């Protein structure tokens, strides 16, 4: 089995997000960037599948600016075999990403596409579903447990009502949830070896994908700050303040 894992370079989860003063997006200059945590779980799962002898090759793909290669290198250091970097300089929407991922999946002939359930920057949660639809193959999203048997995969999904168990035929698209596994630490010697692994750089054009502009961002703004509270000395004062705000009846 051949697995394609999608990874995205996002602002690190520890970083406090700041909106650009002109409202055109969030600040990424000088900000720590990392692999989307859900994608890291997808990479770890692929590695565990390979370590069980159920997979022959793991290809990692990232779509983004030149620096996305840092995250690809991390995935290669964790143990993925090779990388594909689709170089784009502008923000792309999930549909374009889905087409690019599918194009690589088809030319590589992969049996399984593993993706994070969503990226923590835009929280779209669309790519896995779109890839499956475009590919016309089954999908299992929010997986928290996976088992493979004769061309099928059994996935436990985390849904609102509890856990749902699905069996899907391969090839398939699976998006992974938080509790699937705990990603490994990267070893320094593996980090060094990863520098020697190949990363193919491709453009959207190479993949025959045109970047659509179906969605236009009108602006980004930070949530309103909370108003400072006040302290009152007595119950009477409290009632008065609440009445002044129209929160209790006179």
């Amino acid at each position, binding site marked *: 089995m051949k697995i394609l894992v999608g990874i995205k370079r996002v602002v690190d989860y520890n970083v406090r997000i700041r909106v650009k*003063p002109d409202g055109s997006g969030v600040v990424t*200059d*000088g900000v720590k960037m990392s692999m989307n945590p859900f994608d890291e779980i997808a990479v770890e799962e692929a590695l565990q599948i390979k370590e069980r002898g159920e997979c022959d090759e793991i290809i990692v793909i990232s779509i983004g600016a030149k620096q996305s290669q840092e995250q690809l290198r991390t995935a290669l250091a964790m143990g993925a075999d090779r990388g594909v970097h689709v170089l784009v300089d502008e923000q792309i929407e999930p549909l374009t990403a889905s087409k690019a991922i599918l194009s690589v999946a088809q030319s590589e002939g992969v049996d399984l596409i593993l993706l994070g359930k969503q990226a923590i920057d835009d929280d779209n949660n669309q790519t896995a579903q779109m890839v499956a639809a475009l590919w016309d193959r089954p999908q299992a999203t929010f997986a928290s447990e996976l088992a493979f048997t004769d061309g099928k995969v059994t996935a436990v999904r985390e849904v609102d009502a509890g856990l749902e168990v699905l069996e899907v035929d391969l090839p398939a698209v699976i998006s992974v949830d938080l509790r699937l596994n*705990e990603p*490994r630490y990267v*070893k320094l*010697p593996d980090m060094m070896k990863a*520098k020697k692994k190949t990363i193919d750089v491709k453009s959207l054009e190479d993949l025959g994908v045109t970047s659509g502009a179906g969605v236009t961002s009108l602006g980004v703004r930070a949530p309103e700050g909370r108003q400072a509270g006040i302290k009152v000395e007595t119950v009477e004062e409290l009632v008065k303040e609440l009445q002044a705000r129209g929160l209790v009846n006179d």
Partner: protein
Amino acid sequence: MSDRDVIEFDVLIVGAGPAGLATAIRLKQLREDLNVCVIDKASTVGAQILSGAVMEPEPLDELLPGWRDNPPPILQPVLKDEFSFLTEKSRYWMPNPPQMNNHGNFIISLGATCAWLAEQAEEAGVEIYPGFAASEPLFNEAGDQVIGVRIGDMGIDKQGNPKDGFMQGVDITAQMTVLAEGCRGSVSKALIAKFGLDADCDPQTYGIGMKELWQVPKGRVKPGTVQHTLGWPLDTSTYGGSFLYQLDEDRVALGFVIGLDYQDPEFEPFEAFQQFKNHPSIKALLEGGTIISSGARAIVEGGIQSLPKLEMPGALLVGDAGGKLNVPKIKGTHMALRSGMMAAEHLAKELTHSGYDQLWRGSSSAAELHKVRNIRPGFQKGMWFGLVNAAIETVTMGKLPRTLSNHPDHEQLRKVSEPRLSPQYDSSKRSLEPRDRLASVYFAATEHDEDQPVHLQVTDTNICVTRCKEEYNNPCTRFCPANVYEMVETDGETQLQINSANCVHCKTCDIKDPYQIINWTTPEGSAGPNYVNL
């Protein structure tokens, strides 16, 4: 542990700050054939670097001649220097001391500059691995020569047992190890002690610097304005002052530096900084703005008389791991870059420690520190004496045949039984964020896996509840800018609680603790603050 992975390099550099990266870049420029590796405990290069910072550009001109065409992301030429003395309500303009003339210098973010330097280093062929913390030095069998460092293990729980995913740290060995950990580096500290490198010099003396980067409302900032203050809110016995540098894009970098030889055990450096921000002349600039990032770091203030020997078998100390900050200039970046370049030039000839100390002491950097050696110690006798002394030393250009001594900071605290020296700060009148130290830690984006051994080792917690409580009222609960140390009562018993996950790696506790029972060690790699452009 014979199965521990070992990686070999020609030269290993511990710490990706200005000194370490300058060493690496220069070394590759001179000796393409050498394998040079830089490791850093931060998750990315620059994430745990904090400095004012105004930089003298000459060393960069020498290291990377074309750098002005490909500059680091934050680079604002200094256009104006202002120096003033604060009282609680007023501000008195003073003549700018000649050492603090910044004509031709640049306001930078040292963190952003180091990230940029790392790119230059990688292009030159240096291997840089952030996220790997050097936990201890390695020695040859005879134990008399440094042969590298051990990287800390990952995935150990609080009690010291391996967790799922445990990863043993590797050993990195090298013919020469260059320690570029910055002020009070933990490996450097161990090696200075082992080889007695400080046997012939004064004790080192330090300061704590706290910094915030602000985004303020449009139109207030005059980019290129450099301001320093003395006076309020410090009492005259405490050495320190503020810096405020106005950047482009409506950003302001400001901070407060306080000598760690302060005497009042009840004094809280963090509170002094916050109090300063609420001075009417400062608050007007910040009000309505937001903090981008904040943090703290100890700095070296001892100058040339406290400088340890910079070499030992197998290893060198560069930058502030040795301690080369020029206090009257309030600058160290140029010294760090220069000492790194000098180390590289020394190692390019032969991979030996021998001769580096002498090379540095014969350099213009040493002469620069010699000239100003008596200025900082003069402030031990209070601000007014210090200022008069500084004026004399400046006029005589350090030629008076005397060298004032430094004293160990941890011995300077007075007992709580003596009258207080510093004023009580009233925090209720302050309106600017952060409201307290915990809120400030939030802006440092510091992160430690809580289920790992506490990296702040207190060797005798008994002292905390007995002698320290009585003599100094647990000053660790006040000098730590990140609220790591707390005395908590459980079941009627008071105990020291170490909130190590808050730690911003400033190392103040390791320095100022009066009994020297706190040992700062490296936590898991990548842990710690994630500063943005500090």
